[in-house]
């Protein structure tokens, strides 16, 4: 299976001397959904910024078939990797939803008609087709989050990267987001603290701690390892049982995807 993302010994040091990434090694295959877990300050956002060329480090990084070095590569990279920022108010900067979703496709050099077709398709995928003419400030937090996802879906990226997608969402908006994301057939890297969300959406999880990948495996088994989680300042909500989630049907899809993936391997 070919890799969408392959990082080897990726390091990044901020100008103030702090080393945020200390040799990250990670590979993600086509079609996988991977949860990137880790405490605050572990380097999750720094790593995610590398995937879109917003930051550059040393070491080897190949994303969506692009070897990340040099400006030309980075332009190419940005149209193949869709990065959804944590705060949708940062992501939605145009006066209307429609213009915002069209921003990426137009930058990719599509014509107006092609861009509008992409807008329609992307908004439909996140169930926000009715809001095209509205201004972002007129939307609820959950709606803004889904529109933010549409803005990158419209670019048809090979890899979709979401930074804390459930931050500030109420349970209903969180559930809607989960349903929408579950329908999207794309390779996904989901950065989150919301472990139950990761369990329902992703079949694989990795833990990033102090700038290194310290665990990598099936989401259900990583989340079941209480000691591993505790060592890296993570914990499931009290009373939450991953095994129960898998057997009850929620998260079943993630589980099936895992079985499929292992059968293929």
């Amino acid at each position: 299976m070919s890799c969408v993302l392959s990082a080897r010994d990726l390091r990044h040091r901020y100008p103030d001397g702090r080393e945020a990434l200390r040799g990250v090694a990670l590979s993600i295959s086509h079609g996988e959904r991977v949860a990137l877990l880790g405490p605050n300050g572990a380097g999750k956002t720094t790593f995610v910024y590398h995937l879109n060329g917003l930051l550059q480090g040393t070491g080897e990084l190949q994303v969506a078939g692009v070897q990340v070095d040099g400006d030309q590569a980075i332009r190419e990279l940005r149209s193949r990797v869709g990065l959804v920022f944590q705060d949708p108010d940062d992501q939605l900067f145009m006066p209307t939803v429609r213009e915002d979703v069209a921003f990426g496709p137009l930058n990719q050099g599509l014509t107006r008609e092609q861009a509008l077709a992409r807008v329609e398709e992307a908004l439909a995928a996140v169930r926000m087709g009715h809001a095209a003419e509205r201004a972002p400030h007129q939307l609820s937090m959950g709606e803004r989050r889904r529109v933010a996802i549409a803005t990158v879906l419209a670019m048809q990226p090979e890899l979709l990267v979401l930074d804390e997608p459930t931050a500030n969402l109420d349970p209903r908006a969180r559930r809607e987001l989960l349903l929408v994301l579950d329908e999207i057939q794309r390779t996904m890297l989901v950065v989150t603290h919301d472990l139950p969300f990761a369990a329902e959406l992703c079949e694989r999880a990795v833990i990033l701690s102090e700038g290194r990948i310290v665990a990598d495996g099936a989401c259900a088994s990583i989340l079941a390892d209480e000691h591993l989680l505790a060592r890296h300042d993570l914990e499931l909500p009290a009373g939450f049982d991953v095994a129960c989630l898998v057997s009850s049907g929620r998260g079943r899809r993630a589980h099936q995807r895992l079985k499929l993936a292992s059968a293929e391997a």
Partner: protein
Amino acid sequence: MSGLCNHALQGTGLTGNTGSPVHRLDPRAKVVGLLGVSLVAVTTPLSAWPVYLACATALAGVAALARVGPRTIWRRGRFVIPLVLFVAVFLPFVRGGEQVELGPLSVSAAGLAAFAAVSVKAVLGTVSAILLGATTTFPSTLRALEALRLPRLLVLIAGFVYRYLFVVVDEVQRMRAALAARGYRPRSALQAGAVGRVATALFLRTHSRGERVYLAMLSRGYAGSVPMLDRLRFRAADVAFVVTIAALVVPIRIVEVLP
């Protein structure tokens, strides 16, 4: 968040009969027509008062067609008009020359004339802007300005101001609530320091938001220019609108103010 916010920004946006012929015009026609009325009013000396009458007639016509009532205009204008009048009201007292008795006051005749001229111009300009705002959404006004060859950078900045005004007002209201929740009720100027610190915090937050927005733009392929999605169409009605307004105010302006 958005539910609680924005009472400071209420009273913006479309109003009147939003399906009216004026609302449906190309935004460029409205920008050119209403800006034209303001320009004519501003450049006319007071002695040529029929020109003002023509401008007022044009604006009243637009307002009637769009069903924007005097109450709406007053509600939206009451922030701007008193401010201008406050500045102008001192003119009769500071100008020299011939004095006239106005009840117990003795004021300069030239100053009084200047006050009247400034007031009329201010009111006409404000009403034009209110009518534009009431009949055209902000994004379409931006598109019109862009199509009228205003520098793209300025249009872009105006767009960001519009988009993030709501976000910043939200933040200000949260910070004010946080101050009030801890019992902040300034009783003297010495206690106003907290407001300064709020302003600083707001500035820093806005600055870092700016950086994040820029990153978000970069990550969607921004390379120095924002692509334009919509093309505007100038129809017969738009031509008619601009020509009618021009016919109302331009000839009289030329006749009244001959060199």
